[in-house]
């Protein structure tokens, strides 16, 4: 019976499922080619490559349903040194990405309530509440989450992940490997911080090898690092194409198209995907196609997206001729590409994973925003004050004031939450955005 079950799962995961997803992609590509199914007076249709990205993500989660049968599974934070785990053959699940999928599918509040009913405060991160709720209830829009053999957390995005993963470790009784990355308050991290992170990465290897049941091959690690760097480089190039006017790819599209560089960096398919995307973006530039049909204002987005209102926000802005051209969040997945050195994997991983924008000071983020304003010729900034993400949000009030005062670029603070729609006021956001666009038109 078990053999039959294995055979059925294998067929679904490797043959039937992928084939069905491919057919679905062909259908989507056909509809996109005919121009049907897209109803926006203000926004250009998504990139054609988006359907391929959707298929990649869907295939990943489909494989995940059956991953526990034949692979070791790691649950991992989004900016952790994933290259190690890829090289050791782990199947990788990003609970934050799963949380974002739940947010976009508008099931995050239901799942959060499950966690809240179990005693988790509404003041906690909504990604964490969403995923804990999914774990407690067994409900997920991706079908089924594979259970982890390993939890791998890196504190370079927040301390929240440490608290969250400790709960998971306690609940699931699986080992937690922690890469603790000291916060970089000043321009550069002190050398003892780099050494600390490097030592942690190195000493994690025997633990990971034991769980994986295989040894880490340096050739494989270098190959993974190379692919990771290539994907991050391509992603950066794509974003930088938005210096062109009109911007060919909106930040709202970037939010969904960044999934592979977050959860599949280190895989050849990810490099191919972004190479294809770059070609299509270049094609749009050649044809003069902008993501917003009548681009009159070019904006910067700061912080995580509001997953459950992505399209609404894009439409709201598009109606006023405003395009979201750049974002500190999507930028974070490309800006460190140059630090990855496959020939010195451990030291370069230590440096790369110390310097994400979320592990750096509030002044560094202000500097990044100023640079992006110049680089992308921006005339406004939207700062999402995200109740669920304190490290990203603290400092925004000063950043808003400094931007307006020192660059003359107006900035608006929007109160919301990346996953919990109970913290989002539709009318208030609409009124404030409309008033902001009026300001830009003066």
């Amino acid at each position, binding site marked *: 019976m078990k053999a039959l079950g294995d055979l059925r799962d294998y067929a679904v995961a490797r043959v039937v499922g992928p084939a069905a997803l491919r057919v679905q992609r062909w259908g989507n590509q056909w509809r996109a080619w005919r121009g049907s199914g897209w109803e926006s007076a203000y926004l250009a249709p998504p990139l054609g490559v988006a359907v391929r990205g959707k298929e990649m993500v869907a295939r990943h989660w489909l494989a995940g349903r059956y991953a526990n049968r034949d692979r070791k599974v790691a649950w991992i934070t989004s900016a952790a040194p994933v290259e190690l785990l890829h090289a050791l053959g782990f199947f990788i699940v990003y609970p934050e990405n799963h949380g974002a999928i739940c947010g976009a599918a508008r099931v995050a509040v239901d799942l959060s309530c499950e966690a809240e009913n179990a*005693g988790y405060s509404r003041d906690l991160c909504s990604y964490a509440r969403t995923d804990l709720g999914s774990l407690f209830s067994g409900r997920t829009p991706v079908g089924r989450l594979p259970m982890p053999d390993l939890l791998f957390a890196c504190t370079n995005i927040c301390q929240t992940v440490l608290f969250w993963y400790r709960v998971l470790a306690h609940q699931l009784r699986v080992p937690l490997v922690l890469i603790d990355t000291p916060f970089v308050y000043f321009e550069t991290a*002190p050398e003892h911080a780099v050494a600390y992170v490097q030592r942690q990465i190195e000493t994690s290897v025997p633990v990971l090898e034991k769980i994986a049941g295989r040894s880490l091959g340096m050739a494989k690690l270098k190959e993974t690092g190379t692919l990771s760097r290539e994907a991050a480089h391509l992603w950066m190039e794509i974003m930088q194409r938005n210096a062109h006017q009109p911007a060919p790819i909106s930040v709202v599209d970037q939010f969904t198209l960044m999934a592979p560089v977050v959860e599949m960096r280190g895989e050849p398919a990810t490099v191919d995907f972004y190479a294809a995307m770059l070609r299509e973006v270049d094609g749009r530039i050649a044809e003069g196609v902008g993501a917003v049909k009548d681009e009159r204002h070019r904006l910067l987005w700061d912080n995580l997206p509001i997953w459950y209102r992505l399209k609404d926000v894009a439409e709201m802005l598009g109606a006023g001729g405003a395009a979201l051209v750049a974002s500190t969040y999507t930028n974070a997945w490309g800006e460190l590409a140059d630090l990855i050195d496959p020939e010195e994997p451990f030291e370069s991983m230590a440096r790369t994973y110390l310097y994400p924008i979320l592990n750096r000071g509030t002044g560094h983020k202000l500097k990044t925003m100023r640079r992006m304003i110049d680089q992308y010729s921006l005339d406004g900034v939207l700062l999402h004050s995200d109740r669920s993400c304190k490290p990203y949000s603290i400092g925004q009030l000063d950043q808003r004031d400094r931007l307006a005062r020192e660059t003359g670029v107006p900035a608006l603070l929007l109160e919301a939450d990346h996953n919990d729609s109970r913290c989002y006021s539709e009318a208030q956001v609409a009124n404030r955005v409309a008033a902001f666009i009026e300001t830009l038109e003066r």
Partner: protein
Amino acid sequence: MQPDVNVAPLPSIPRRRDLARAHHERGGLVAAVLPIHYPRALLRAFGILPMEVWGPPNVDAARAASRLQPYVCSIVRNALSFLESGGLQIADLLIVPHACDSLQGLGSVLLDFVHPAQPVLPLYLPRNPAPEGTAFLADEFRALHQRLAEVTQRTPSESELMQAILDEEVADDLLRRVHEQRPTLPLTTFDFYHLVRAREFLPLDSFVSLARAILAMPAVKSPPKIPIVLSGIVPEPMDMLRAVDELGASVIADDLACCGRRLYPAGRSRDPFMRLAESLLGGSPDSTRGSPIQDRLDHLLGLAHSTGSRGVVFHDVKFCEPELFDLPVLRRGLRDAGLPSITVEVDLNDAVSHQARTRLEAFLEMIA
């Protein structure tokens, strides 16, 4: 309320402002230190008087509203408000240890935007309990040593530093003994915390004298009170402790970040920086240091069993992620072990609400 016959007259505690002035007159510097863990002995070696800033409660929090969102905890908001209203003018430098995302953000905002008159010295607390974490913390202390030398224009010798460490270890040991003797001390819960929290700002000699005076108090057999364990970050507003006394209960042990989690054991190394790091990381399990929840649960159960406590009160500051994440598992674990618990969520600027008092009263009646 009938006066408690077992309550002794309290040793007087000098005011912070007077202490700071006297310290300045002796040529020393004063450091305002934010929560939670920091190397007190290292500051003392430079002749610096550390004065901790846990909020403070009941300040005009509106001053911080122009820089911090309302979903940041009141410990952090109040600290910034207090600074911006001139409350920290007595301090010559600010030390901002890393305890959570909010304190990290405050440190960064101070450095990048507020630019207070005093130098701001951040300090990262490692979350990895492995030897790498201890070695890193020793390096952090070396870096802090260098910054303090720049600020004070003096450099204590290694033997001076080691002596300061040994002196602090004596004070830490006295503090631990005060906590252990709590059940027989003739002090109300409120008075106990009023005295032991003087460790947050007293000069070393004054604290040692105070601790010895407390330990010399005649042991009493307390009237029957309901023994409880208090957990959380800081027992503010302190009126909650008065309520505990008035309702016939007594905090017999605590797992507070500002008190019980800072009963540091002495370090072992001969290297002063390693010794400081070993000591600081050797405290009881703490959410802000990344301790496993099971360790915290075991510690709480151990505290309750060793003191005969009948319940645990979690006194949590609103928006405190490190504590709030652990809470459901801790409460479930305590319940499974037959130990009731209650959560009281507070904001440092709010008086103890009638609702909170009623809930506490009902809880105490239940476990009495």
